[in-house]
Structures are given as structure tokens and as C-alpha cells.
């Protein structure tokens, strides 16, 4: 005969749910339900500032040797202060190759946005556990974004923060590139830009895939280039919707990629001809051909000129 400890009755334990009633779902504290408001309190902001300037920034300088281009394109938006004297919030929309992208960009975004930016991060990845959620919120000022379905809450939270003067960093591809080529841009950044009437700054990252591509577990040092493009305002007059604006952002990032591979004027010539190479790469039937084509991208390195005898003719 088995001895059992007597079960304490209600109210000393919880009462069982009657079988005819839908049980109440326990409140989750991770994923899209994670509350990040604490990460924007004064103490958390100071901690993040110290972390960014003393750990993340120097680490990125060592690992990624970032070459930042096009910061002059942001001067007009920087000067355009709002009626209340606040800085114009913007949405930084970048292509995505690696986990290094976020810290690299956070340490590359210039003042006055540098310390008032939040990151739209995948709820199912960065907010999976309490620990990763806390770390993401504190270090990156991340808010959870539902990427598997359209979530009203994610959009509302992001819009509220933008309306409060925070700028946003988002990767419209929705995830890191699986093969080094880009993926189609989703409409989230464009939707928020239209909803909050703020500009989107297209950003192209080159070289972060070499540091830590998707699936890799170790870091390799490599030079990177971060190109900031001209801010794109929502075209309210023509009634532009988020799908069309997302396509415009994608074209702008693709043009920056073309500029990084060639030069600005060649990129402009191709952009006006509608011949800018797509971020998503060639439509090749086999994976190896797409991988092979990756070699054509990236900045043209200057060849050291061969030493020759002078031409005496």
C-alpha cells in the first residue's frame, strides 16, 4: 500500500477548473508579451550608453573595422528639428546578414539618434526566455516584433515609441540571410513610416556575413562597410501604401549595395535605367551558382600596381 501525503483542500491550494469551463491561460512573460518599458528608464539608458561606448563600440572597431559612408546624407534631417525643438525620429532600415549587424549599426548610428534608438527584434528568437529577453532589452533596447504573423501589438508599441521621439532600427528582411543574398523586404518599416510620418534611412551593410554568417558559431575579423542613404519620406500626396514604400526602401538599399560594389555614378546610371542588381541575387536554379555569383559583389579592391621598368620609348 502506497502512502500519499494528503492533498490540501481549497483554499489552501488552487481550485480545479470545472470541466465545462475554458481554463484561463497563464500570462506569458516572454516573446511578444515581454514588457520592455523598464529598458527606457534613466538607469537602463545610462547602463546601455556605457555598454555601447565602452564595450560594443570598441569591440566592433576591432572585429569589423567599420567604414561608415554617407553620414552627410542625414544632415538635413538632423537640422530639421520638430516644433517642440526635439530631434526628428527616423527609421533605420538595413539588410541583414549576421548577428553582428545590430551592434555594428548601433555603434555606427550618429548623434543625435545614437542614444535614442530602439531595435525591432524577432520575438521568437531574442525574447524566447527571460534571460535573453532581459539581455536584448537592456543591451539593444530591443522590443519584440512578431515576424511569423501580423501583430497589432508589435506595431502599436513601435509606433508609440516613434511618436515619443525614439528612432527605430529594423531589418525589413525579417531575418538573417540564409545564403548571403538578400530576401524580399517586408512592409513593417514602411507601415510605421507612413503611420508616424517619419523618414526611413536606407542602410546597406557589407561584410558582416564574413564575420559571422547565419549558422556560424564563431567570429572572424573582417572589414565592413556601412552605407547610409538619403532619407526617404512617405509620399503622402500620391497615397503611397506600405507595399510600394517597402519596394522603394528595397530599391534604395539595392542601389547602396550597387554603389558599394562599383561607384556612386555607375549606381545612379543603373538605377535610372532600372538595372540595379537585385539584393536577392540571380535567379539561378542551383544553390552553387547563387553562391558563385556572390564573389562578384563587394567593394573592388585596388590591385597593387606591378613594378615595371619605366617605358623609355
Amino acid at each position, binding site marked *: 500500500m502506497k502512502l500519499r501525503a494528503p492533498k490540501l483542500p481549497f483554499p489552501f491550494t488552487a481550485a480545479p477548473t470545472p470541466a465545462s469551463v475554458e481554463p484561463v491561460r497563464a500570462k506569458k512573460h516572454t516573446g511578444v508579451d515581454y514588457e520592455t518599458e523598464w529598458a527606457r528608464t534613466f538607469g537602463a539608458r545610462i547602463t546601455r550608453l556605457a555598454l555601447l561606448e565602452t564595450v560594443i563600440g570598441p569591440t566592433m572597431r576591432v572585429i569589423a573595422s567599420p567604414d561608415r559612408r554617407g553620414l552627410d546624407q542625414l*544632415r*538635413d534631417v538632423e537640422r530639421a528639428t520638430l516644433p517642440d525643438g526635439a530631434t526628428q525620429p527616423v527609421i533605420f532600415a538595413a539588410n541583414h546578414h549576421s548577428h553582428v549587424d545590430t551592434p555594428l549599426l548601433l555603434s555606427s548610428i550618429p548623434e543625435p539618434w545614437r542614444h535614442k534608438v530602439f531595435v525591432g527584434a524577432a520575438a521568437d528568437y531574442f525574447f524566447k526566455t527571460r534571460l535573453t529577453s532581459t539581455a536584448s532589452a537592456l543591451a539593444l533596447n530591443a522590443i519584440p516584433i512578431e515576424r511569423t504573423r501580423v501583430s497589432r501589438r508589435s506595431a502599436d508599441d513601435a509606433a508609440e515609441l516613434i511618436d515619443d521621439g525614439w528612432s527605430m532600427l529594423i531589418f525589413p528582411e525579417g531575418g538573417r540571410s540564409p545564403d548571403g543574398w538578400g530576401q524580399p523586404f517586408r512592409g513593417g518599416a514602411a507601415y510605421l513610416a507612413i503611420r508616424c510620418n517619419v523618414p526611413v534611412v536606407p542602410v546597406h551593410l557589407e561584410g558582416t556575413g564574413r564575420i559571422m554568417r547565419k549558422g556560424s558559431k564563431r567570429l572572424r575579423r573582417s572589414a565592413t562597410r556601412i552605407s547610409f542613404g538619403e532619407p526617404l519620406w512617405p509620399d503622402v500626396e500620391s497615397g503611397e501604401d506600405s507595399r510600394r514604400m517597402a519596394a522603394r526602401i528595397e530599391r534604395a538599399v539595392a542601389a547602396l549595395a550597387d554603389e558599394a560594389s562599383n561607384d556612386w555614378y555607375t549606381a545612379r546610371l543603373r538605377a535610372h535605367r532600372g538595372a540595379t542588381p537585385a539584393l536577392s541575387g540571380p535567379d539561378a536554379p542551383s544553390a552553387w551558382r547563387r553562391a558563385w555569383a556572390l564573389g562578384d559583389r563587394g567593394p573592388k579592391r585596388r590591385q597593387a600596381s606591378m613594378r615595371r621598368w619605366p617605358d623609355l620609348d
Partner: protein
Amino acid sequence: MPRPGFVLDVDRSTPPLLFWHGEGFRLERLPADRSRVIYPPEPLDALPHPSAAIRHALLNPLGDSKPLPELLFPGMRLTIAFDDISLPLPPMQRPDVRQRVIEAVLDMAAEAGVDDVHLIAALALHRRMTEAELRHAVGDRVYDAFAPSGHLYNMDAEDTENMAYLGTTDQGEEVEIVKRAAESDLLVYVNINLVAMDGGWKSTATGLASYRSLRHHHNVRTLQHSRSLMDRHNSALHTSNWRMGKVLRDSGVKIFQIETTLNTDTFPPPFDFLMKREWEWSAKDRTVFLGSSKSLARTPNRLARQIFHSIKAPHAMTSVQAGEVDAVHDETIRNVHRQQLVEVEGQTDVLTMGLPYIGPYNVNSIMNPILVMCLGLGYFFNLYRGKPLVREGGVLIMSHPTPWEFHPVHHPSYIDFFEQVLSETTDPVRIEAEFEKGFAEDEWYRHLYRTSYAYHGVHPFYMWYWGAHALQHLGRVIIVGGEPRAVHRLGFMAASTLNDALEMASDVVGRTPTITHLHAPPLLLADVK
């Protein structure tokens, strides 16, 4: 709403006034009841959307020009010339206005499918720009797209094979400019009109010209009859350039002129107090002034120079206009006057001015004694319309340390001019007749101009001629705080203090002269009635 400039009558309550003194400052009191100070207008508001304004200007040109996109076609030869390092002063914060305009022009050229594009720094006989200076002017995107392939470069006025002789004016002035610019299907000139002297036909007829062409207006006779250089319709220099412009037009050079004006937002925080009126300095301004002037006095010259030359002005664009040269320039001058004009009643016996560390020809360089003379007598003295601020036979008192110091790379011919020519005579007419040709045709100076970063051999002569009108007009020139040996070589008098200088002026203008102080920079243009 920015306040206009004004003239302050000095009385006993007037505080000491800021005088620039090279890489430093002085505070000076002017005698009450017979002195006045001309304060520049405050900086005008910047255009709210500069990129949109540039695009609008290119699509809606002035005069009889067509919109830029209609002038662009595939297969054409397009040349874009732009002003060199001498503008603006100090160099402006990124993005430079030339970069904004050039990118807008190139974007339209790309849309039209133009492949053959050259970008030329319009140096005339100035020194070549370094890579860093070119990058600052046109931006990294444009530099990286055109410089590696050799399509963005400094012009070379001594490369006779690549200069085109286009004829002479009705006064016999030869016109010779860069061949690529002359033979292109379209020449787009991108200018910065910092002062009223810049722009118009002077952009192409001077900026892209050779010595053969320049000597017809950069000479003593022309500059003595340019009254002033800032007043085109009373300037012989400009009249000559406009005659040359007619030759350019008649010989078929197709020019699309783009001119921009900047506000006088000259110094960034915390040095913005240098643009304020002394009685409006806050506690912070006074602290910065005291801290910087005391520490600068103990700083080696070289370091002080580096600090000042690292200042980038927060200049902002106040207007942009494009199209046919004359129509564009008229509008540009209207905008320059809107920013800089200050009405002044009558002339004065003594004009005082503090000369800053920078002029058009010593950006990232040393202001040598010849450039001090040029800045004071050539530029600041000429900041007038109507009559000079100082009466004929009056005295000019400038404040500048005037060190006997030259930049050996940038100004090699200046060194020889100072040693060989000024030790002989300071008379511009004699200098022109006896020495100019030898320097202008010296093979070593040519070599340095073409291959190093040196101003042309003839350039110091032009600096001296620039002051010819003032030398003819003034009874005496005194430099306060100047190195006596260098000042005497210039033919001027050196004084230790402003009071000493006023004392020295008294035997020319009497014991109780009227005094006017030009409170610049920021720049202003005195409209003397």
C-alpha cells in the same frame, strides 16, 4: 527673424570691442563720441529643404536657358567645373554646398544616360587641391566615382596643349580657358558666392583661365579702377571679365551656371560668440573667450594654426539659382546683399579692422605678410559699395601678428617676392613693370604649380595688385601687434597697441579723427552714402 546689421556710435558706456588678431583676439576701446562700429547682419535662415531647392533651380532656370534635363543627352560631353579651396571661408561643414549641387546635376546626367563626364576644380593659378580637400568639396561619393579613373582633377593652366584660345575682346584681351570646358557640349559651373565679388562671368573667365588671359585684368591699372571689387558695375576687373564672357558666348561655349549663396553663420559652438555683439555675450561666452584667448597666447603658433584651421563653418545655403550667367548672377547678388549689406553714413578719417587667421589663399596654410596685406587692403578695404569707408588720404589700422613666416610648399614664389621684390620697392606699378614677367615665366615655379601644391609664380604679384586701390587711396597703413621687420618690408608702420597706432595716425589725420571699426568677420558689405 535675424536682425539687420547696424552702426553703433561709441560712447563711454560702450564695452571694449573684439578685434581679430590672426590666431587670437584683442579687446580694444575706441575713443568715445567720435568712433563708430559697423556690425554685420545676423545670419539669414537657411533654406528649409536645400536638396529640393537645388532641384527646383535646375528645373526652373533663369534667363533664356532651358531646364538642365533638356540640355543633357546620351553620348554628350559634360564638364562640371567648381570653385576651389578658396571658397567658402572657413571651409564649411559637410556636406559642402558644391557636393549637394554636383550630386543633383550628376543624378540628372545619370537619368539622361550621360557617360562622358569630367569634373574640374577651377583653380586658375591657385594651388592644386589635395585629395582630402577635393573629397571635402565634392563628397566621397563623387570623388570615388570619378577621381580613380582620372575624370575628376585639378585644372592645369600651364598645360598649353589642354588650354583653348578662343579669341580676343574688343579691347584686345585674350581669352584662353581649359580646352575640355570649352569644347564640351555643356559646361556646368558650380559656384559659391561668399561675397559680391564672386560669380558671374568671373567664374569661367577667371576660374578656368590661364596667365595669358588673366594678365589682362589682374593688373595694377584694372585693380586701381575697381571701386570696389565688390561692386560689379564699378569694377574694371568685372567689366573685363564680362567682355571675356561675351567672347566665350560668341565662340559657342555653352554654359549652365549654378550659383549659391551662404549665410554668415561662420563659427560653430562654442566659438559662436565671435559672431555676437559684445554686450550680448553670455557668461559661457565670456568664459570661452577668456579661456581661449589666454590659452592661445601660450600656444605655439603652429598648434594654434592647426586648431583654427580645423574649424568648419556651419554655413547654410540661403539661395540657389541656375541658368543663364547674367540672369543668375543678378539674382545671386541680390541674395548676397540681402545677407551682407549695411547702410553707413559718410566716410571716416581712420578705419580699423581686426584681421582673422584665414583668407582665400591660406586655407590649411600660413597667412604670410603678403597675404595679410591682401586680406586687409585687398579684401576688407574693398567691402564697400559707393565710397570707401575711409576718406582719401585717411589711415587704415589693421590688427594682425604678421609673422615673417611662409608655407614653403604652398607659397614658394611669395618667399622670393618678399625677399627680392619688396626689398626693392613696394610700388605696384614698378613691381608690375620690372618683376612680373620673370616670376610668371619662371620654370621652377611652373613646375611646382603643376606638380606640387604651390600657387603660381605670378600669384604674389596679384596679391599686391589686389591692394593697389587701397595703397593709392590711403595716407598711411599701420599694423597693430605686427612683427616690425615684416611690417616695414610691406612699407607699413608697426604699432604695439591701438593707442600707439592712433597716435601715429595723428600726423596724417589730426588729433581728433573720426574712427570706424569694421566688426568682421562675419562678412558684411558697407553701403556708404
